[in-house]
């Protein structure tokens, strides 16, 4: 499973080569066993992301359940021309996680000090299998090519669930510059990892 694969918009008429795409289209037709396989192949990635953003395990389980229900409901609306199946699923999971942390204002996760400490120990969670390890290694290496500010801004945004304005405030950047750091960081990662355009 290569998470960075993206299908080009002109892959006109080709049968989808990505096994996750096949499982998604079967799910769209109501095939529950295909969906179960889709879950088995993506569960740790999705749950890991949700847990990392939300931090609270019980809430992360709840949101992961919502994410998969949404993936099931929306499966017919996945469009391979707009990215890989995994990327689509991660996008749904991330948005729901961010929505959840933003709506739980009372949570202690909004404690800035705690948050910055968390950033100091990235990528220490369980790696599920060898190929995921490889992906992780590629990502880790690519992250090293970012400037510290780009990396911090990106991690606060993606894992912290902060808006670019909040990121700017947390990093004492002038307002409006965090979004540039985030964009530049992503573009650099994309180019380093050779994500297809």
């Amino acid at each position: 499973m290569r998470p960075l694969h993206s299908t080009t918009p002109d892959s006109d008429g080709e049968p989808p080569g990505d096994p996750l795409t096949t499982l998604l289209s079967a799910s769209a037709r109501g095939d529950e066993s295909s969906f179960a396989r889709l879950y088995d192949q993506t569960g740790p990635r999705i749950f890991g992301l949700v847990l990392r953003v939300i931090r609270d395990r019980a809430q992360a389980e709840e949101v992961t359940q919502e994410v998969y229900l949404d993936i099931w409901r929306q499966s017919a609306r996945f469009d391979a021309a707009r990215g890989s199946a995994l990327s689509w699923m991660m996008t749904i999971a991330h948005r729901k996680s961010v929505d959840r942390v933003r709506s739980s204002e009372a949570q202690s996760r909004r404690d800035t000090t705690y948050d910055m400490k968390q950033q100091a120990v990235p990528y220490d969670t369980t790696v599920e299998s060898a190929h995921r390890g490889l992906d992780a290694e590629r990502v880790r290496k690519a992250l090293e090519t970012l400037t510290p500010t780009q990396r911090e801004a990106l991690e606060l945004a993606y894992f912290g669930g902060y808006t670019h304005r909040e990121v700017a405030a947390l990093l004492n950047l002038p307002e409006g510059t965090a979004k540039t750091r985030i964009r530049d960081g992503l573009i650099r990662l994309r180019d380093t990892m050779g994500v297809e355009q």
Partner: protein
Amino acid sequence: MNDDIHSLIGAYAVDAVSEDERYRFEQHLSACTHCQAELVGLQAVAGSLASASAVTPPPSLRANILQQIGTVRPLPPLVSDHDDEGDDGGPAHDRPAPSPVSVESAPASIEQARERRRRHGVRRFVAAAVAAAAIVVGGLTWHPWTGSAPTQVSASQQVLHASDAQRYVKHLGQTTATVVRSKKLDQSVLVADNMAPPPAGHAYQLWYQTPAGKMVSAGLMPANASGATQTVLLNGAADKATGVGITVEPAGGSTSPTTTPVALFSFST
């Protein structure tokens, strides 16, 4: 201003935007092919950031999810009202994407032939789901899971993407409710995220407020799975309305509000 919105692409790809920015960027996205192409790569990169964060979920989660999907039919593919392709044998993903991954508002991208095949294949799910979900709203029967849904979605999409669309947002705990009105189209749409289900035997009813201050029913919100985003086209004329209200009413609805609104949107600002 356009340059400014263009530069939000990175923040948008990692959901580091406010709701207003998200909305404005998606508007921009629907017209900017450059951003559409770039977003695919940036979202893939964003997703890969979590590749080292995988954690095995508890087995109970799998069981819950598989149990839950058994009770919900997948939404139909979005199909265009006006079939401009006209052939039955075409491939599934042959239409250029008008905008990139958008969780709830993905535009039509699958052609009619596939839709026909799909309807055939999932008929048994339709039967079960319709029984659970069809709700009669005034003269309008809302069948979220049948062929009427694409038409509803399409009408809603027209409002959401109207050039004169105005947007009114309310945050209610974990729920975000947004009313989008197009005076030109004389219609409005409610987009509700994470709306808690109404109390048993009740439904959420939508109301237009008239210039005279009267509340006129604009339909009921369809019952839906919790946590999902619901997009509801309001019944009635939006142009002259001065606001929209949501109340909890006995299932089937009331002729005028019987409870204090859970949300009120004023069009006056």
